[in-house]
């Protein structure tokens, strides 16, 4: 299955992937309007320390600890993609406690949020990949 991979050698730490992600999940048409004066909470996040930087998003694990540990059944693996049913989630954060990548975070709508691969809505390429100016984020089979 194709996944999002980050080559930290090429990551500039520019945070553009975070903005593209926030735009992709905003369900709006215009990026500037969607993000203006908004404190974004993206599903891909840059980690940075000293001169090391790289982006991290959900790995869509084959043995997902978040799904196995989910107390409500809100998280599930569908066609390889770990998805969240926001209606069922009650924000207990067991998934945040379980994910070894730190790829799940709380959201403003009373559920957790995570990368669900925006390929269905965005023409086959995740927006973080599309928007990376240095080709550091790729979407491929490994």
């Amino acid at each position, binding site marked *: *299955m194709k*996944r999002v*991979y*980050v080559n*930290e050698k090429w990551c500039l730490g520019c945070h553009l992937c975070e903005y593209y992600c926030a735009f992709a999940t905003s369900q709006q048409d215009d990026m500037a309007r969607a993000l203006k004066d908004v*404190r974004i*909470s993206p599903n891909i996040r840059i*980690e*940075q*320390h000293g001169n*090391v*930087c*790289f982006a*991290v998003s959900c*790995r*869509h*694990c*084959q*043995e997902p*600890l*978040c799904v*196995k*540990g989910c*107390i*409500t*059944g809100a998280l599930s693996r569908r066609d390889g993609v770990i998805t969240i049913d926001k*209606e*069922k989630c*009650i*924000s*207990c*954060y*067991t*998934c*945040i*406690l*379980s*994910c*070894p*990548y*730190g790829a*799940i*975070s*709380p*959201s*403003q709508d009373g559920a957790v949020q995570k990368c669900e691969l925006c390929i269905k809505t965005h023409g086959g390429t995740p927006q973080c990949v599309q928007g990376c100016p240095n080709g550091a984020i790729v979407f491929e089979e*490994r």
Partner: protein
Amino acid sequence: MRYVLIGNSATAIGAVESIRRYDATGDITLLSDEPYATYSRPLISYLLLGKTTRQGMAYRPEHFYADNRVHFLPGKRAERIDAQGKRVLCADGGALPYDRLLVATGSSPLVPPMQGLDRVARAYTFASLDDALALQAALTPQSRVLIVGAGLIGLKCAEGISRLAADIAVVDLAPRVLSSILDEESASLVQRKLEENGLRFYLGDSVQTFSPDAATLRSGTVVPFDTLVLAIGVRPNTGLLADIGGKVGRGIAVDARMRTSVPDIYAAGDCTESVDASTGETKVMALLPNAYMQGECAGANMAGQDAVFDKGIPMNAIGFFGTHILTAGSYRGDTYVERGEGCLRKLFYSDNRLNGFILVESRAGARAVRPVYDKAGIYTSLIREGTPLDTLDFDLILQAPGLVAFSRADRLQKLGGAPH
């Protein structure tokens, strides 16, 4: 192959999903003494709070049993195992033959003998949907509720009924709230938040005697009530195994493959005791993530695989009135503490290993800044995997969990290829 599963919560569901990975055609029969399709037990407090619905509590979609070709027998109680004849004998007189049996009977509320308890007309426990519905039906806006037990169940119950009752008092023998998962400092922070939301506590105290409408505590304090909730603890349901001479400690004894001491009988989840990977001690770890993964492991082995689950650790994520508590492991060794107004980060380590942590976040709007529980799973993984701390930048990870604290080689291994 005939599989029989006794139980219908996370453990049994994990077993079904696992069996079907490896065996598409075997005959699966699942029986439950409750009349309902699988539901999330921890959600009963959210149901009373109005944060979920009966429908929202479904742990799996309605078509789960059909999709997985499970012969589902709701409302059927397993009475006895005939290990020689390899049959489960049911309370209704029926018998279910098995080749492989899973005991996933969970636990039951502990109700010790207490003086005068038989005179209390409205006494409830809080472990099942029926318990929650009975309690809800008993409450009125004038209700004065006494909850015995300030543990996870008692306090989730308190939150759940906080808008349904006039007054809620909680008594516990322990000197602090959530004594099984919090230390003194974190408990006092959480207790303050609970008190701000109207709960009253009598800690380090216990009920000496009940009259029909009041409890007299050991300290002499008299606490009037009209509705009583007993949330003292739970007891693993080990009877089916104990009755046939199977090995039982505090829970049903199982190995890392979830095999009991009786051939072809497996057990998993809250009814069992297992090894805490963070300490090596054998204990009952009645937690939903472990229950699912043990059930999954049992299911794989029942279907002829060789699966091992030896990574169980105590871990809890729980919230009350907007305060979030994330804990894992054991609280021994040196400590790192970061205190803020309404938040706490506490890590425990020794011998080059992270042993445990306590994270409490109660700041309003913490979501917008960086909450202390952000990426907590990275801490959990250090405990679960027993990662040597000298292989990473420990000072950095103490302050905030992140993959950047790992070596470049470890990062490449974690992020560079297809994940497990």
